[in-house]
């Protein structure tokens, strides 16, 4: 298949101009300036020399790279909360003053009960902030969930010990510890957290960070992580209009996942964190990003059109076929995919169809063992070629034969279909793809 023609390559001048803008955008989004510096350098390396996609300017092509890198930095998938082998699972909330620990403790308890069928309880270990215990008790009442507290005269270490014991006694499988807000540079209070950690060895220590945090986010995250080895981060107040660059800074300096996002003050406004959405929010170049997305779709559409033309002429090659397979694979399990096509279940040939994902690997291996000429013209195949291909792909000659037959059938089918499309005749159905059982 012919390569989609681009507009030449991204040169250094393009990159220089764009990275200036990207640098500004990221700084305005509160990404730490050191993180920005590293990031921009990486972009420079990656972007120079890239092929520029049709309908994009070189500058936009650079932004495409930026967005990809950002998404990668933010981390691939959503992360989960650890579960203790022996209950209860202990979760400890830590962070600066006013970040949202107490609120998030209650939200998380609610989330785990609703979404994960857990039976959590809360522990009020903030003995410093005025009415911190009242706050957690009120939230516990709203949730109809037990809260362990023991006034403000006790040592927080004793409180968490007793709280965890209560969870064990009453068969709660999860216990969430609310701790007082503290500065990362407050040695005695950081020491107290460490004592609490040593006392109950939490399964999750979650650092709660306000999404509006500025350049200082790196210091905060670094300190808390160094001293407590946090397991993850909760980013609160994301219902605001902050770009939330702190998320990127934290990822860059701790490499710990951001697990949840606080989306409001109410008790059910906690969501699993979506790294990819955060990347585009931080960059804040919505217009350019949707343009890039469109360009990407156009490329895919163009490819589809080319393919359609080939189908019509039935001059499909194995290369096209491989490409199709790749696209299909990137969409997820085949069965799910077919299930999504409206009416697919009712189509005759597809009705009892079963997809064998493992077969796809075989098919790919066979095709990759073919020479260029063989891929374009399967008629070249003779016994010795087939043996060579089977050997090269770790399959059998029968497998190769099967694929060739199916490929041939498919081409015939396409011819039929395209004449149907033009001639509007009623089809017979019953297409058999090479990776179906």
């Amino acid at each position: 298949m012919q390569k989609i023609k681009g507009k030449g390559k991204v040169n250094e001048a393009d990159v220089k101009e764009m990275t200036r803008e990207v640098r500004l955008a990221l700084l305005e989004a509160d990404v730490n300036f050191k993180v920005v510096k590293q990031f921009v350098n990486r972009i420079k390396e990656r972007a120079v020399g890239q092929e520029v996609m049709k309908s994009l300017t070189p500058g936009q092509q650079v932004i495409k790279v930026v967005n990809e890198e950002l998404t990668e930095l933010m981390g691939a998938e959503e992360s989960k909360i650890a579960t203790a082998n022996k209950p209860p699972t202990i979760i400890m909330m830590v962070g600066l003053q006013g970040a949202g620990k107490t609120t998030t403790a209650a939200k998380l308890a609610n989330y785990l009960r609703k979404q994960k069928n857990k039976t959590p309880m809360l522990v009020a270990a903030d003995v410093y902030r005025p009415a911190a215990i009242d706050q957690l008790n009120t939230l516990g009442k709203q949730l109809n969930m037990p809260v362990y507290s023991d006034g403000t005269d006790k040592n927080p270490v004793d409180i968490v010990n007793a709280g965890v014991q209560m969870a064990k006694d009453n068969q709660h499988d999860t216990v969430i510890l609310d701790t007082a807000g503290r500065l990362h540079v407050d040695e005695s209070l950081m020491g107290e957290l460490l004592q609490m950690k040593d006392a109950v060895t939490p399964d999750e220590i979650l650092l709660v960070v306000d999404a509006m945090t500025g350049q200082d986010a790196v210091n905060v995250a670094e300190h808390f992580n160094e001293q407590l080895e946090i397991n993850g981060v909760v980013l609160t107040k994301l219902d605001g209009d902050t770009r939330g660059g702190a998320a990127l800074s934290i990822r860059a300096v701790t490499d710990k996942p951001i697990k949840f996002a606080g989306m409001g003050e109410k008790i059910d406004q906690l969501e699993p964190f979506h790294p990819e959405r955060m990347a585009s929010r931080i960059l804040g170049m919505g217009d350019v990003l949707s343009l890039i997305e469109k360009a990407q779709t156009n490329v895919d559409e163009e490819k589809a059109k080319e393919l359609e033309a080939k189908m019509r002429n039935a001059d499909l090659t194995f290369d096209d076929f491989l490409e199709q397979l790749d696209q299909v694979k990137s969409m997820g399990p085949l069965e799910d995919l077919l299930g999504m096509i409206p009416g697919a279940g009712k189509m005759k040939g597809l009705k009892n169809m079963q997809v064998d994902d493992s077969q796809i690997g075989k098919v790919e291996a066979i095709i990759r063992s073919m020479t260029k000429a063989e891929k374009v013209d399967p008629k070249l195949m003779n016994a010795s070629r087939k043996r060579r291909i089977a050997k090269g792909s770790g399959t059998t000659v029968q497998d190769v034969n099967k694929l060739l037959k199916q490929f041939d059938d498919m081409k015939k089918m396409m011819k039929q279909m395209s004449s149907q499309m033009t001639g509007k005749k009623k089809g017979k159905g019953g297409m058999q793809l090479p990776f179906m059982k």
Partner: protein
Amino acid sequence: MSFFRKLKERVTNQTDSMTDKFKDGLQKTRDSFSEKMNSLAAKYRTVDEDFFEELEELLISADVGVNTVMELVDELRDEAKLKNVKNSRDILPIISEKLTERLDFTGHDSELTMNPDGMTVILFVGVNGVGKTTTIGKLAHHFKQSDQKVVLAAGDTFRAGAIEQLAVWGERVGVDVIKQAEGSDPAAVMYDAIHAARSRGANVLLCDTAGRLQNKVNLMKELEKVKRVIQREVPSAPHEVLLVLDATTGQNAMAQAKQFKEATDVSGIVLTKLDGTAKGGIVLAIRNELDIPVKFVGLGEKMDDLQPFQAEQFTYGLFQNMVEKEED
């Protein structure tokens, strides 16, 4: 350098313990900033592009904001050229001067506006968790010490434990708190509080409100209504609308200042949590763009951890190490 000496003298002449407190509180913050400033000055003998670039980064790391930093550094570039400054040591006083200038136009606008005839009403606004309630406790203590009769209004009827929190502060400081049940209308609480405070002969009424993000239209409307009710009951009130900003906050503080100013005509800022390592540099940009002065700084969680803001001290804090080094 004469400028530094002058600055130092003026700051030391403010004899009260406040200066020390302010300096102590700022110490941690400023250490890192000043260290960087020093290493910057030591590293570069000449004022060149690299110097300005690093200065840019230094200010950006203090959350001053990209635009303000670029503007400021451009000005400095011009000035360096004009005055033919070659040595980085000589440009530092100019930087300090510029920062002070930007923070303080008149020299004394950190003072609170008090009602000359009757009760002074101060409304506190801001996003969630910045320190509104705590600042009210601290300020109540401050007024009480100068023999004012203070009453607090528990206008946050939404957040769990908010009323109890203010009540604890009232007890600590020894002032009355006017409150209603959780979930009641905050405007009604204000109405009540004004009348209760009057009948108790209060000089100062400090009004707490629920934290709200500035992009929540309905909540901002609610705040406007709270202010209208206060205005209706005391025509000259509120005498101050104080926006509480967390020094840890980055560029979003500008959006906060803009939106809260539009909704409630903010008259001053309280910059909290300056006892941490965050620098709160965004107040420079806010001062510049919206002309809202900083009136107080929060330096901890205790009753007396509140100090009047002074631009010179703020700048002095930034350059403290440098001043001391120069004296050797």
